[in-house]
């Protein structure tokens, strides 16, 4: 009779354990909550508590306004680190473990990534479409996929040009209306010792925003799969434009907007302007000695094409897959982002970007600003900007990876690789990444 030696027993145990693990290793989030029956609203008189994970500061104070009016539906805010700085990792892990909050802050561009792990509730099944009218149509378009609605827009970032009035006056310039003008002024500013802006090689979302403005629309969800077109004329012309701007030293690539060296340069008058989103106003106030010097103008336009403005950033309140009360979570999200008291509370406590509501920008934003030399910049510049955006742009499930791929290409600009060739290469790599994820994608040519 053969006896089992200790070693073979151990090997047997190990392999059995591995096999069991492999079997149990089915990827989390493989079953969609959107294919099962909807969860009915809470019983009348039943008291429920919703949790809301977000990186907005003092969000609890906003929730408290709602809580005071709705004793039966209490909302509890839990602070998480910002999206890619750890917040998303935490959310993905919670979703994978079958838990998570009722609501969470998810950037517009990350909605499809959360859909890919079946993490979001299609709130159109709970009647979200009836609220569409209240929102900025561009934003609503960016939360709508496959005839469903996967998040409630919470804030946005329409773009404009912030500039130093004194530095522009010194060279006798007025804010540029076209990117051509911008390049001319940039050359003048260089002679006076300032840069007109920086070009962050490590963050391609700014480039994407300006390509969007020029009319690009990189990826689209079609019925037979994703289509990609990153090498359209608009994108390549924007890439060529900034290739020239970097080669002629019109912009600096040493740092990105709002980084520590940028703040140092801005305080020294070495940065004369920046094209940025509406939420940049709060960050600009961190530049020492900046008060009263800065003004806001419309974003320069691409000659003969594109739109008046663009957008960077923006987030949503998304209902998470394991929420037990999606109906109430939706109601709260809509209240917070469209009611006057909700928007005002978010601006006052959380300092959100632009209001997602079509009709109300917030009481605080309807008055002149002392920081911008008494300019009523929100109504003058940003409100029109929200109406001049590219409505066709939509996000895709590999946004973060795509931006990393593009940035990794841009970083090689320092060693002589042009932005144009990086964009072309990035398109191929993104197609590859989609295929590795098991998603179908095809290239379209314009």
């Amino acid at each position, binding site marked *: 009779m053969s006896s089992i030696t200790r070693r073979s027993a151990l090997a047997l145990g190990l392999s059995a354990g591995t096999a069991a693990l492999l079997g149990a290793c089915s990827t989390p989030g493989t079953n969609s909550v959107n294919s099962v029956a909807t969860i009915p609203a809470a019983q009348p008189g039943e008291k429920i508590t919703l949790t809301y994970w977000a990186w907005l500061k003092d969000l609890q104070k906003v929730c408290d306004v709602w809580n005071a009016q709705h004793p039966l539906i209490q909302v509890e805010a839990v602070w998480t680190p910002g999206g890619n700085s750890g917040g998303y990792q935490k959310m993905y892990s919670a979703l994978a473990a079958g838990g998570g909050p009722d609501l969470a802050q998810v950037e517009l561009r990350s909605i499809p990534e959360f859909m890919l792990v079946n993490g979001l509730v299609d709130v159109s099944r709970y009647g979200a479409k009836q609220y569409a009218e209240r929102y900025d149509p561009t934003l609503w378009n960016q939360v709508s*996929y496959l005839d469903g609605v996967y998040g409630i827009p919470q804030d946005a970032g329409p773009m404009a040009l912030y500039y130093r009035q004194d530095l522009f006056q010194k060279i006798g310039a007025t804010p540029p209306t076209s990117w051509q003008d911008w390049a001319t002024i940039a050359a003048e500013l260089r002679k006076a010792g300032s840069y007109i802006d920086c070009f962050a090689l490590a963050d391609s979302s700014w480039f994407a925003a300006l390509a969007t403005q020029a009319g690009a629309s990189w990826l689209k969800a079609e019925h037979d799969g994703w289509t990609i077109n990153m090498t359209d004329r608009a994108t390549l012309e924007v890439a060529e434009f900034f290739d020239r701007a970097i080669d002629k030293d019109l912009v600096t690539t*040493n740092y990105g907007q709002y980084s*520590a060296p940028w703040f140092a340069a801005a305080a020294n008058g070495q940065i004369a302007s920046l094209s940025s989103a509406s939420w940049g106003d709060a960050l600009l106030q961190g530049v020492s000695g900046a008060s009263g010097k800065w003004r806001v103008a419309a974003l320069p336009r691409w000659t003969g094409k594109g739109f008046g403005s663009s957008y960077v950033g923006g987030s949503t309140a998304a209902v998470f897959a394991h929420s037990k009360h999606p109906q109430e979570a939706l109601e709260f999200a809509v209240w917070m982002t469209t009611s006057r008291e909700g928007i005002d509370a978010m601006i006052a406590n959380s300092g959100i970007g632009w209001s997602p509501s079509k009709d109300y920008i917030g009481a605080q934003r309807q008055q002149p600003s002392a920081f911008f030399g008494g300019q009523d910049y929100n109504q003058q510049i940003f409100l029109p900007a929200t109406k001049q955006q590219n409505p066709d742009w939509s996000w895709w499930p*590999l946004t973060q990876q795509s931006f*990393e791929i593009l940035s990794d290409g841009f970083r090689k600009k320092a060693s002589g690789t042009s932005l144009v060739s990086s964009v072309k290469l990035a398109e191929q790599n993104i197609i590859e990444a989609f295929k590795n994820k098991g998603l179908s994608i095809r290239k379209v040519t314009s």
Partner: protein
Amino acid sequence: MSSRKTASRQLTAAPWLLLAPFLALFVLTFVLPILVAIGSSFTKVTRNGLFGEQGVQTDFAWFSNYAQALANGNFLASIGRMLLFGVVQVTLMIALCTLLALLLESASARWPGFFRAVYFLPYGIPGVIATILWSFLYVPGLSPLVDLGKVFGLQLDFLGAGSVLWSIANIVTWTYTGYNMMIIVAQLKSIPTEVYEAAKVDGASPWRVARSIQLPLIRPALVLTTVFSIIGTLQLFVEPQVLKSVAPTIDSEYTPNLSAYATAFAYNDYNVAAAQAVLIALVAFLLSFIFLRLTNRKSR
């Protein structure tokens, strides 16, 4: 008879009982994660529809995740970069910490306790903070070093494509030299005084003492610190991750660990990330093994 048998059984059960808390934690936090990672590296997810809404399958994928990890030029480049980094940085650091330890333990050293503490101090600063501190010395426009260089007509570029790796090496060396020095000092202190006395009687110079007595006797400490440093090199993560925000040339997959991190958390591809992690562990194992083999052979 039966009572004696149970007593002996209790005797053999006792160590297991005492070990149980440790073993439970060991299995839960060490063995299981490794098995899960290995298991995960052999599975692949396929999706139907635009977002996988028409079904998601998880299948056994043989080595396709490994193939994908190895086909990723960035990942391979990062391993090559770390090998280069290791050869230069580990050698420099071990030489430096040995020198410091010998100087501090030499008979003519002044205030050895004070200087030990000073050299060890950088290790007490978390990597993130250390990198932020150093980044202020690296970034043009903020750095007094760059300004000073300009005075002497030098164009210092700490964050350029060719130099940033050595700027990271500098931070790592700064942080860990004192720590490794302590290990070597501990071994130096264990050398019996009789040996020194004998050398003194024979008229050996301090240089001769260092070469013929101290260096051979601290071999185990040198081997230990070198192996730790080799493994540490492959795990490099914090310094490039933090420095990335000011150094555009550091990409998202600059080191092997950064690559696995980006794959897992930015790209949400845990299976390929698991394959990368297994590969990193294998390389670390291989390098340590080769190094130990070489040093063992020499000593025979």
